[in-house]
Structure formats: C-alpha cells, structure tokens
C-alpha cells in the first residue's frame, strides 16, 4: 500500500507540487518570523556583552524600566573610587531625543531609532572607540557615532546646533567620530551624540547626577566583598549589579519588543497557515474525488477502508515533510525579504546573522506536517468510505455532503464563532490578552463556519455574479458560470482562502477609514485652534516662551498631563490653560465654565457620573509629592475626543506636579493677522527646533491620515499573502478541474470551440470563483469592521465608515487574481490534444 501511495505521488508531480505550495508558504512565514526575531535578539546580546565587557559592576537607580530609572548623585563616584580593590570608576548619563542638525538642516527622524545624547568621560571603561578626530573635552564640543556621521552631512571641526529636550538648541563644535567597542559591521540602530561629562549632565538635564556608574576592579580583589562595600554606599533607590547582569538587563529591556514583534509575525503566519489549511483540504478532496474509481478498485481487490485512509494520510505526511524542508530553506531567505519590507516602512534593524534555532525547525515541522495532516484528515476519511462498487459505476465522483447536515453543522459553528467574536469585542476582560484570544477563536470559528456554509451560497451567488459574464462572455461565459456552480463544495473550498484574506483586509481597511473619519470629524467639529505644535515626546524647554512672545499668535494652550490619585484611583490628570481653552477647542462644555482662578477642575460627563459629582462639588486629587487637594468641579464637557476625563488649570498643574513639562501646544493666530503671516512667524521662531511638528489643521489631519494609512499598508501587505495563497488555490483547483474535464474539453473542441474560447471559458470560471470569494469576504469584512468599530471606544472610533471605493477596488483586485490564476490552467486546457482528450 505504501509503495502504491509513493508511486502515485511521484506520478502526479503537479498534484504534489500544487498541494505543497500552500504548506511551503505557511512554513516559510513561520520560519522567517522566528529567524528574524532570533537574529535580532542574538545581535542585541552580542552588542550588550561588548558594551558591558569593560565593567565588573554597574551602579544605577531603580525604576520600572531602562528609560525611567532614578539618577544617582555624582559624589558616589569619588566614594566608590576609595573602596580598596576598585581600579576604575566612571559616571554616565544619556537622554533620548538629542540630535545635531547637519549642514543641510537635516537630522535623524524622530520616529526612527532612538537618538541618544551621552556623556564621554575619556575613561576607557566607557568602551568608546574613537575613529576620527578627537573626543569632546570642552563644554562646547561634541562627537558623533560613525553611523550618524556617515548618514548625514557633517564635517569635523565645524560648529552645529544640537538639540536636547532639557537643553533646547545649543551650538557645539564637532571634534570626532566614534563607535562603541563592538564589532564593526553591527549597528543596533540608535544614533549617539557624545559630550564631555559635565556638559552632558547639564545639557541632558541631569546636573550633578549620573544614570549609571561603571566600575572595574582588580582581578585579585574579592568581588563579593567589593560589591557589598559599594552597596553600603548607595541610597535606597540605587542598586549595584555585575557587568554580566547589566548586559542581560540591557537585552531584557528589549524582550517585550522581541516578544511583541514575534507575536505579530506569528499572527500573520497563522493567518497564512489557516488559509493554507483550507487550500490543502480542498485539493485533497478534489484529488480523492478524481481517484474514486481507482480507490474503488483497490477496495474491490481487498484493500480495507483503513488502508485507503492510511494511504491518503501517508500522502499528506509526505507532502507535509517535503514542504517543511522547502519552507524552512525559503524561510531563511524570506527573513531577509521581511527585514527589507519592514525597513522600507521605516523600521531599522541591526545587520547580523540569522540563526536557525532547533526550536524553529521543530515549529516548522509541527506546522508543516500537522497542518497538512489535519487538513487531509476529512478527505482521507471520505476516501475510506468509497465502496468497491464505485470502481464499476459509470459516473463516479464522491457525493457531496448533504445540504441539511451541512446547514446544521455550519450553523452551530457559526453561532459559536459569532458568540466568541461578540464576547471578545464587548465582553469585559481585565487584560487584553484573553480578549484577543477569545476574539481570535471567535474569528477562526466564524471562518470555519463560512467554509462549511459557503457551498450553500455558491449557486445563488454564482447565478448573480455569473449573469453579466454569461451575457458578456456568450457561450464561453455561460459554460464558465455553470462550471463554477457544478460542484459548489469545490468552488466554495477554492474561494474560501480569498474570502478569509479579503475579510481580514477589508476589516482592517474599514477600521482604518473609521479612525480617519473620526479624527477628521473631531478636527472640524471640535478644534478651533489654527496651529498644533507637537514633538516626539515632550516639547523642548523654551518653546512655549518663544511662541507666547510672538505678536502674531493669539490664544495658546499647552497640553500636559501626569498620573495622580483622583478620589483614590490612579488617573491621568491633564493640565490645560483654562483661560484660553474655550476659544481653541470646543469640547461641548454643557455645564459650568472653565474657571482659571485656581483650584478648579472640569470633568468628562461619564467620569463625573462615575464619581457621582456635579458642578460645584469637589474632587480630591492626591499628587505624586503626597499633597492632597480638593478641586471644585467648575464644568462638565461631553466630547472627550481631545480631553482626558479630568483636567485642571495649567497653573495648578505646574504647581502640584512641580513640573514645567509640556506635551504639545495649540494656538490661534492673533486677531487681524493673516494666516500666512502667523504661520511664517511661528515657523521662524521655531526654526531651531526641527524636531517640532508645526501643523495647521489640514496638515495635522493629513499627517494623522498618512500615519494610519502607513500602518494599514504594513498590515495589508502581510494579509495580502493570504490573497497570494488564494491565488495558488485557484490555480490548483482549475488545474485539477481541467484535468478532470479533459474529455469534455476535447468534445467542446471537436464541436468547434476555438482555443481562445476555451481559454476564455476557464478564465471566466476563475473570475467567477474569485469574485464569489471576494463578495463573501468583503461582506464578512463589513460585518467585522462594523462590529469592531462599534466596540472601540467612541473617542477613538466614533462610528464605522465604509470606504466604498476601496472595497470596490478589492473586488477589482479579486477579478485580477482570477485572471492571473487562470493563465496556466487556461493554457493547459486550450492545448489539449483533441484526439487524446476524446478518447481518454
């Protein structure tokens, strides 16, 4: 039996190839996902080992993560130096969003890799490698890392403006270039500007303080002893760890990112595999239908049903194994492509090796073999039920599942799927992960239900879709239309990949469109301010003053906010300028006023209801410095698109939070100043802050929309892979159908169908199948998109928007997919030798 199976496989290479193609793609994606993230991780590990290789100990403040540790006082350096056995000590500071502006007025993008300002002590323990020029040792000097220097237009010896969040724009002379003491070819992405330590402390906003202190000790000293002596010197919010621990911590700081990134890639891989599973299932079903006579003969000469089933499963195993091998090899290549795609969207990756871990291979096997075998199981069971009589019957062919049973099973799965989806969307969850799992399960079940139920829709939908084709395509069109509906299960099975792909793509598109229209509605209805000034992070010091000083600018308010305990619960408390806000943003203040006299707060209606307070009542806020203060509710607003639930006046905010940080500011032109003049004045005053985004309403909207579009584009590129699989699926089915209808095609040719008409017929059938899949998929996408838009809070997505034009483009794309898929099968069909065909 095994020999027979394998011979059969070898004989039908095309069948084999077509079946494995889908599995190969799925495995490729899984392997690429693992390899890319493993590669990233191992590069980071290598880099961090190198960076910390000169340190035996590292002293740093405590904090939730790398970027929010409390600094340590600089006196510690001297105290640690005094410990016997300590040979070298150096303090270090760094701050993100620090960047020099080159000769062309350009600098690193805020959305790219981090842009660090760092200290340069000249102490070898820093592990910087000077490449050109000299290190910075005067207060007005800086050095650049080689990558930054290479990517932009700088000349050593020239003076440049460098901007930091704390220090604003300031002039420094470029003294040289450097690299961390790490392998040359590796770049982790971040770009660095280095300053002499005291300058770094001041310019980066940490006077008299360090973020880390690097310590080297005499190899003969007792390390544990030294560590405990250091520990004894430290304040409560600082720790001393070994260099190795510091290196691990550095990598761990990125673990969340790796995990999230891998989860995203694996989600796409899952979609690809899920779609592939339907394709494999469909292919096996068709093949078994075609082999029914052969299987009947096997049964007639004594093969048991079990043997027949096993033979199909062995075929699946062989397909799975070979696909896994191919997929793994391709995956290594695809990893590079994946990186290239992501980089084309602005992401930055270190160049390093892409390791193939045993874990990756195991997953590839699990995915490739298991998915194939599961997909083939139902067809294999069906094959086992072939009776010996089928060998003798004239017509042959497997009976398709009866509609009644199909409706019941499909209906039950659909109910489970819809219930899961709705619960996932609207149910209450404490965390995002279980919600996503329930939602994903619901979606998977819904798609399976679609796969089970969609054969029932083939006849009616094809009747509608096929009508214009039959009218337009004459006899070839009519034949195509009836071919598409002659085996509903096959047509539906072929289309389901496209259905799932387009359902996901249109869901994402609808959510994106809804997001955009919400932003645009909010802007036109709510924002009366003319200009919006934002930065990546906080606005640098001095911006507010610059803008306030402009006579061309009228009302201004800043947006700022920090967490505090409001009525005992953690809340983000926003600071707004209550004296100007009403002329800049219309948040539907339906009760009371913005009272800027101090000690007042305005609340979002839902939140006021939640707290059970109204205008005139008080709300207690406990600030991080421990101060508790009662604020009087002076107003209640209804539109929370731009405001958080609770705001206080900016003056109170600064006083209680003890901070002048500003997140963003919005402003209007002064009365009687033309928009062009106001804008010009604003641009001029902020010339030294190229990282600032100065936008009018239209620009703000445009940028928001283009950001959403970019995100959508990335998602859709990956979801588009499922459309590629759908295309393969259609090629597959058509090829098998053409093979199955050889005689019929020969007859058509004999009675006068031209090759061209044959090609047209196959093409139209393909288009009908594709459009069937598209119509179903877009229909589902509209439902999902609507449900999800409804589930997202109103301040993010107010109402679902359906981009009809784009959805129509998807239908057109489906037609194209159909046409492309038909090229080879149509050619094959047209090339049939008539004589051989009619005598087959």
């Amino acid at each position: 039996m095994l020999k027979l199976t394998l011979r059969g496989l070898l004989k039908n290479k095309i069948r084999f190839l077509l079946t494995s193609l889908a599995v190969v793609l799925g495995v490729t994606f899984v392997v690429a996902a693992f390899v890319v993230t493993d590669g990233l991780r191992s590069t980071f590990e290598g880099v961090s080992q190198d960076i910390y290789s000169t340190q035996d100990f590292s002293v740093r403040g405590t904090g939730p993560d790398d970027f929010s540790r409390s600094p340590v006082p600089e006196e510690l350096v001297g105290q640690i130096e005094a410990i016997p056995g300590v040979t070298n000590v150096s303090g270090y500071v760094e701050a993100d969003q620090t960047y020099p502006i080159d000769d062309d007025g350009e600098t690193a993008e805020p959305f790219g890799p981090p842009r660090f300002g760092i200290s340069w002590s000249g102490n070898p323990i820093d592990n910087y490698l000077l490449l050109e020029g000299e290190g910075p040792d005067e207060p007005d000097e800086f050095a650049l890392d080689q990558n930054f220097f290479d990517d932009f237009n700088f000349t050593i010896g020239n003076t440049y403006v460098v901007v930091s969040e704390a220090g604003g724009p300031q002039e420094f002379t470029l003294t040289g270039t450097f690299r961390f003491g790490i392998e040359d070819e590796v770049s982790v992405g971040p770009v660095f500007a280095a300053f002499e330590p005291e300058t770094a402390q001041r310019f980066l906003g940490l006077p008299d303080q360090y973020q880390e202190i690097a310590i080297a000790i005499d190899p003969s000293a007792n390390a544990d002893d030294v560590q405990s002596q250091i520990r004894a010197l430290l304040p409560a919010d600082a720790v001393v760890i070994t260099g190795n621990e510091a290196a691990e911590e550095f990598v761990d700081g990125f673990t969340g990112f790796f995990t999230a990134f891998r989860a995203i890639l694996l989600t796409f891989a899952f979609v690809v595999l899920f779609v592939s599973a339907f394709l494999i299932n469909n292919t096996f079903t068709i093949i078994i239908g075609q082999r029914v006579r052969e299987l009947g003969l096997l049964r007639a000469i004594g093969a048991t049903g079990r043997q027949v089933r096993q033979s199909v499963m062995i075929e699946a195993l062989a397909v799975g194994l070979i696909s896994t091998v191919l997929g793994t090899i391709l995956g290594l290549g695809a990893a590079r492509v994946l990186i290239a795609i992501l980089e084309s969207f602005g992401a930055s990756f270190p160049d390093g090796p892409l390791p193939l871990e045993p874990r990756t291979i195991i997953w590839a096997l699990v995915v490739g073999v298991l998915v194939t075998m599961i997909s083939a199981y139902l067809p294999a069971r069906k094959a086992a039920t072939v009776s010996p009589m089928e060998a003798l019957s004239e017509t042959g062919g497997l009976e398709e599942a009866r509609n009644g049973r199909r409706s019941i099973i499909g209906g039950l799965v659909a109910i489970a799927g819809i219930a899961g989806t709705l619960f996932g969307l609207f149910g209450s969850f404490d965390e995002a992960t279980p919600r996503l799992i329930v939602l994903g399960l619901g979606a998977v079940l819904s798609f399976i239900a679609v796969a089970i139920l969609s054969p029932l829709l083939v006849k009616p939908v094809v009747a509608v879709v096929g009508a214009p084709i039959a009218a337009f395509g004459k006899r070839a069109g009519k034949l195509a239309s009836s071919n598409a509906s002659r085996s509903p299960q096959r047509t539906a099975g072929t289309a389901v990949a496209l259905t799932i792909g387009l359902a996901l793509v249109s869901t994402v598109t609808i959510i994106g469109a809804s997001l955009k229209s919400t932003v645009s509605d909010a802007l036109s209805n709510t924002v009366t301010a003319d200009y919006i000034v934002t930065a990546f992070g906080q606005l640098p010091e001095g911006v507010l003053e610059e803008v306030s000083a402009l006579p061309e600018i009228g009302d201004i308010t800043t947006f700022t906010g920090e967490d505090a305990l409001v009525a005992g619960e953690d809340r983000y408390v926003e600071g707004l300028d209550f004296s100007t806000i009403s002329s800049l943003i219309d948040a539907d203040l339906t009760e009371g006023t913005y009272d800027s006299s101090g000690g007042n707060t305005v609340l979002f209606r839902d939140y006021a209801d939640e707290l059970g307070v109204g205008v005139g009542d008080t709300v207690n806020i406990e600030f991080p410095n421990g101060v508790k203060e009662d604020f009087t509710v002076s107003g209640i607003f209804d539109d929370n698109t731009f405001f958080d639930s609770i705001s206080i006046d900016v003056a109170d905010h600064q006083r209680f939070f003890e901070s002048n940080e500003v997140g963003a500011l919005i402003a209007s032109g002064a009365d009687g100043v033309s928009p062009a003049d106001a804008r010009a004045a604003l641009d001029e005053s902020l010339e030294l802050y190229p990282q600032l985004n100065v936008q009018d309403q239209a620009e703000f909207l445009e940028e928001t929309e283009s950001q959403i579009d970019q995100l959508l584009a990335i998602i859709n590129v990956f979801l588009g892979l499922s459309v590629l699989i759908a295309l393969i699926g259609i090629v597959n089915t058509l090829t098998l159908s053409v093979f199955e209808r050889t005689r019929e095609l020969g007859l058509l040719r004999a009675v006068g169908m031209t090759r061209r008409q044959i090609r047209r017929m196959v093409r139209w059938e393909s288009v009908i199948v594709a459009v069937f899949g598209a119509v179903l998929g877009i229909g589902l996408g509209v439902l999902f998109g609507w449900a999800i838009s409804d589930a997202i809070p109103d301040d993010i997505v107010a109402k679902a928007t359906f981009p009809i034009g784009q959805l129509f483009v998807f239908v057109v794309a489906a037609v194209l997919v159909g046409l492309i898929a038909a090229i080879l099968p149509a050619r094959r069909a047209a090339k049939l030798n008539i004589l051989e065909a009619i005598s087959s």
Partner: protein
Amino acid sequence: MTTMAARTEGASKIYGSGDTEVRALDNVSIGFNPSEFTAIMGPSGSGKSTLMHTLAGLDPLTSGSTYIGDVELGSLSEKELTLLRRQKVGFIFQAFNLIPTLTAIENITLPVDLAKGQVDMTWVDNVVSTVGLADRKTHRPDELSGGQQQRVAVARALASKPEIIFADEPTGNLDSKTGGEILDFMRSAVRELGQTIVMVTHDAVAASYSDRVVFLADGKIVDEMANPTADAVFDRIKNLGD
C-alpha cells in the same frame, strides 16, 4: 461531376518511426457523396478511426490530402480547422457526447452558439421533435437515458446543418432496440433531409442501415459494398480477418 462532401487523396498516416512505425493509413483515396450514408468497417487497428479523424481535421495526415467540400484541410491553421469543424462538420461519439452542465437544447445549439451564429429555431425544433426530445429539452444529460443522450448528440450534429456528419460507433453503448432507433433516425436524416453521414462501426447490423460499406484492413481499403444487408456484411467481415 458534383462536388464530393468529403474525400481523401493518397492519404497516409504514419505513427512513430523506425521499428515502431505504424502505418495507420496507407495511401487511401476515397470520396463521400452528398446525401450518402457510408459505413466504414474493419477490425481493430485497421485504421477506420484514423480515417475518420483525419477526414474531420482532428488529426493531420503524414502525406496526401483530405477535403471537406472544396476545402483542403492540410493548408488550414488550427483556428481555421476549428471554425471549419463548427460550421461544416458534425460529430457523434460513442459516449460522453454531451456537456454535463448544459441542458439538452443547449447541447444541441452549442456549435451554433460557439460560432455566435443565429440559431435557426424552426430547424432545431424540427430536428428535436423528429428525434423525439420535445419534452426533454431542458433536461440535463444526467437526467436522460443513454438512448436519449445519443439522440441529443444526433440532434446536435444536425442542428448546424453541417456538410458532413462523422459518427464514431454511435450505438456502441446502446442496447439493440435503442441503437436501432438511432440508426433509423440517422438514415432518415440522410433520406429526408439530404444529410451526409460517415459512420465508423464494427457492428454488421449497424452497417446495414447505410447506403454503402467501406471495408478497411491494415490501413488500406480492401472492399466496398453497396446497399448492404446485415448478413452480407457479416460474411464479408468474417473473411476480412483471414
């Protein structure tokens, strides 16, 4: 002399080469008169099917020429051959004659539809009622009996009023009574409608319905018989094998 409906001149067809060379047709010259019902007989491998296929333009000759009416097939492109087939040639095969997704009437008008021609419905209705399918027009092939399916095939061959109809064992899959009905109908198509039919068969009874029987053996015409009877044909084939 009137133009022949179809003819061959020195037709030879050789498959393979060297040791495996098979001479399926060996310098065959034969003509088929309009409104004549010809049966071609011969044992397996005698070349009777090859003769029919080359006559119909389905299979090119190795040497010699074939004509449908005045048109020499060897000079035609693949597309021209297809167009010629749908305009001037009708086919009836032994089985699987019909497109399963089309109704009886759609199958009948298929060649005309393919040519985007105007279907002569009076003629088609006439043909359909003559073959006794008037109440089966909208049935699909799987709803028809074997005999009914063959009648649809005959009706299709007639519907486009071809110059010549080629029938390849048209009754081979039918019981003798149903087969007889089909043959009766084919003969009346020749007598009453002036149709030309060339039929390949190995069945002496079927051949007896024809006006003339041509006997083939080893790719050559070995005999002819006019106004055959079943017994005479049967005797003749018995001797052919020797």
